[in-house]
C-alpha cells in the first residue's frame, strides 16, 4: 500500500515537472516582448534593454530554462514583471482567496448533490429525480461565464441584493490578515459586519460554481445510487428485516461512495481548471485573476505558476483519493498492495 502511494506520488511529481517544462517553453516562444510592453510606448531602446537584462530576458532560452528550473527546485517561481514582486509572494497573497472560494463552493456542492441524489434515489421518477434530469440536460450546456453574468444581472442589477464582484466591500476596512481566509479572519476579528460583507461577496461566485458542478455531478451520484440499489446484498438486507432507511444509508450509500468519489475527483480537477473564468467575471482577487491579468501584459511567470499550482492541486486531490479508497472499500486494499 505504501509502495503504491509512493509510486503515485512519484508520478505526480513527473506530471508537475512536465507541466512546468511545457508551459515554460510555450510562454517563451512568444512574438510579443514583455519588456517593451512594460517600458511603455515612448521608452527608448536603452530602457527596454535595461528591463530585459533585469528580468534575464536577454539571455539564451536554454540558460533561462536552466535558471528557472533551478529556481523552481528551491520553490522560486520567478519574478512578475507586472507587480514587480516575486511570484511566490504574490501567490501567498492571492492563493487564500482562490482556496476560500473553492472550498466553500465545493462543500456546498457536496452537501447539495448528496442530498439531491439521495432524495432522487429514494423516489425514482419523483419530482426531485425529474428536476435533476432537467438540470443535467440543460445545465451541462450552460457556459459557466454566462451563468455568472446572468446571476450578476439578477442579484446585482435587478434585485440589488448582492455585490457584483470583488471579495470585500471597498469602503470598509478588511479584518487584519491572519489566515488569508476572510471568513475566518473576520470571525477572529470578532466583526459580524465584516463576516456578512465577506459572505455577501462570496455568494455569487460560489453559487455559479455550485450550479455548474451540480449539473454534472448529481447525475453521476444518482446513477451510482440507483445502480447499487439493484444489488443482491440489498435483498439480503431486506431479508433480515432492515428498513429502507437503514438499507439506504448503511448499505447502499457506503457502496456508492467510491464511484461518487471518483466522479468528485474529476469534478474537482475540472473546477480548478475553470476557476479562472469565475474569478475574472467576479473580479475575485485569486490566483486565476492574478495570472489572467499578468497574461494580458505578456507577464508569463504567474501563468506558469498557476499551471504548476493547479496541477499540484489536482495531483494532491488524486493522492488523497488513493488514500481514501481502501478506507471506503475494503476490497481495494488487497488490489493496491
Amino acid at each position: 500500500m505504501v509502495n503504491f502511494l509512493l509510486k503515485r506520488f512519484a508520478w505526480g511529481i513527473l506530471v508537475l515537472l512536465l507541466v512546468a517544462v511545457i508551459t515554460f517553453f510555450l510562454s517563451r516562444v512568444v512574438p510579443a516582448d514583455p519588456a517593451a510592453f512594460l517600458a511603455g510606448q515612448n521608452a527608448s531602446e536603452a530602457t527596454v534593454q535595461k528591463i530585459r537584462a533585469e528580468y534575464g530576458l536577454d539571455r539564451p532560452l536554454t540558460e533561462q530554462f536552466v535558471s528557472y528550473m533551478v529556481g523552481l527546485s528551491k520553490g522560486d517561481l520567478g519574478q512578475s514583471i507586472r507587480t514587480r514582486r516575486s511570484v511566490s509572494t504574490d501567490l501567498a497573497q492571492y492563493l487564500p482567496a482562490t482556496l476560500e472560494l473553492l472550498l466553500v463552493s465545493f462543500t456546498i456542492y457536496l452537501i447539495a448533490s448528496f442530498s439531491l441524489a439521495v432524495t432522487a434515489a429514494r423516489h425514482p421518477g419523483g419530482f426531485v429525480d425529474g428536476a435533476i434530469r432537467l438540470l443535467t440536460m440543460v445545465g451541462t450546456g450552460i457556459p459557466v461565464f454566462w451563468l455568472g453574468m446572468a446571476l450578476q444581472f439578477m442579484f446585482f442589477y435587478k434585485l440589488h441584493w448582492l455585490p457584483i464582484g470583488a471579495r470585500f466591500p471597498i469602503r470598509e476596512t478588511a479584518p487584519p490578515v491572519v489566515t488569508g481566509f476572510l471568513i475566518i479572519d473576520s470571525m477572529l476579528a470578532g466583526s459580524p459586519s465584516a463576516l456578512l460583507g465577506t459572505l455577501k461577496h462570496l455568494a455569487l461566485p460560489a453559487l455559479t460554481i455550485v450550479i455548474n458542478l451540480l449539473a454534472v455531478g448529481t447525475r453521476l451520484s444518482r446513477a451510482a445510487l440507483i445502480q447499487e440499489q439493484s444489488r443482491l446484498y440489498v435483498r439480503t438486507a431486506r431479508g433480515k428485516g432492515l428498513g429502507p432507511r437503514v438499507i439506504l444509508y448503511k448499505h447502499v450509500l457506503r457502496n456508492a461512495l467510491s464511484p461518487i468519489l471518483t466522479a468528485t475527483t474529476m469534478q474537482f480537477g475540472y473546477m480548478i481548471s475553470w476557476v479562472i473564468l469565475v474569478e475574472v467575471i467576479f473580479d475575485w482577487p485569486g490566483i486565476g485573476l492574478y495570472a489572467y491579468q499578468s497574461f494580458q501584459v505578456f507577464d508569463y511567470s504567474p501563468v506558469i505558476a498557476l499551471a504548476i499550482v493547479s496541477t499540484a492541486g489536482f495531483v494532491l486531490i488524486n493522492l488523497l483519493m488513493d488514500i481514501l479508497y481502501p478506507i471506503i472499500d475494503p476490497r481495494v486494499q488487497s488490489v493496491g498492495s
Partner: protein
Amino acid sequence: MILSVRDLSIGFRRIGGDLPAVDKISFDVREGETFVIIGESGSGKSLTGMSIAGLQPATSVTSGSIRFKERELLNRPDAELRRMRGREIGLIYQDPLGSLNPVWPVGDQIAEALRAHGLASGAAAARRAVEMLDRVRIPDPARVATAYPHEISGGMRQRAMIAMALIAGPSLLIADEPTTALDVTIKAQMLELLAELQREMALTIILITHDMGVVAEVADRILVMYAGRVAEIGDADAIMRTPSHPYTAALMTSAMISEAEPKQQLNAIVGVAPGLGSFPDGCHFHPRCPLAQDDCRSFVPPLRRLGDVALACHHPVGSDTALMAEA
C-alpha cells in the same frame, strides 16, 4: 401446517397485459419438514419462495393467499412484513458473495439481523454473531466475524449467510439454491449442516433447487414446478421411486445421467424451458413432452390425486405401459 399457499399468481406489469410468471399454485408446508421446490430456471420457483417473505420484485403483481402460522402475508404493507423477515422467516440465497455487503465485516452483518429486531445491541449482538458463526461450524469464528466477505472462502460465506438467516431464531428457513455456487464436497457439507441445524432448532425448511441430487438427499416432500405451474407434488420417496409426471421422470433421468457421467452436460429433456411471456397453451410442458397428445395442446390438466402424490397431467407415466418402456 406452518405455511399454506393458495392460488398464488405472480405476474409482471407490461403495457398490453401482465406477463404471468406463476399461475395459481397451491401447496402446504408442514412444521419441521424439508419441503423442496424443484424446477428449471424460469419455472417461477424462486419467485414463489421470495414472495413468501414479500421479496418479490416491486414491479410484480400478486394474487391468492399465503398464510404463515395462520396469518395472511400476501400484499401486506412492507413495514409489517419487515418485522417478520429474519425474526420468523430466514432466507439464504444462491450467490453468497453478491448477497453479502462487500464493505462491512461479516460479523457486523450477522449482528445486524439481531439489532434490526431489537433482540440485542452493541457488544451483545456482536458476541452472539460470533456464537452463531460457531454454531454453523466455522472454525475460528472470532476472526471470521471481523473479516470482509471477499476475504473468506465460498463455503464460509454461505455458512455466514446461514448464520445471518438463523440468528434471530426464525422457525422457517427459505433456502434459494443455496448450494448451486458451491463445489460437490462443500455442497454435501452444507446440506448436512442444514439438516443438523434443522434438528437443533426445530426448523422448517423450504429448499428451492434445480438439482435432483439435492432433492434425493434431504427432501421430505417435493413440489415440481414447470413454467409457473405445479407439475407434481407429494411425498419425496413416492415421487422419486415412481415419478408420474413425464417432466419429473425426465428430470430424474437427466440427474441419473449426469451422476454417471458428471462431465457430460446431457439433457434428457428435448428443447428448452419456455421463457416469461412465451408459455404455450394447454399443458405448458406439451412441446417438450414425449407423451403429449392432442388434449395436452388445448386443455390445462387439473391437479389430481394419484396415491401419495398429486399431479397435473392428462397422460401420466405408467398409464400406458408401452410408452413407459419407451421413456
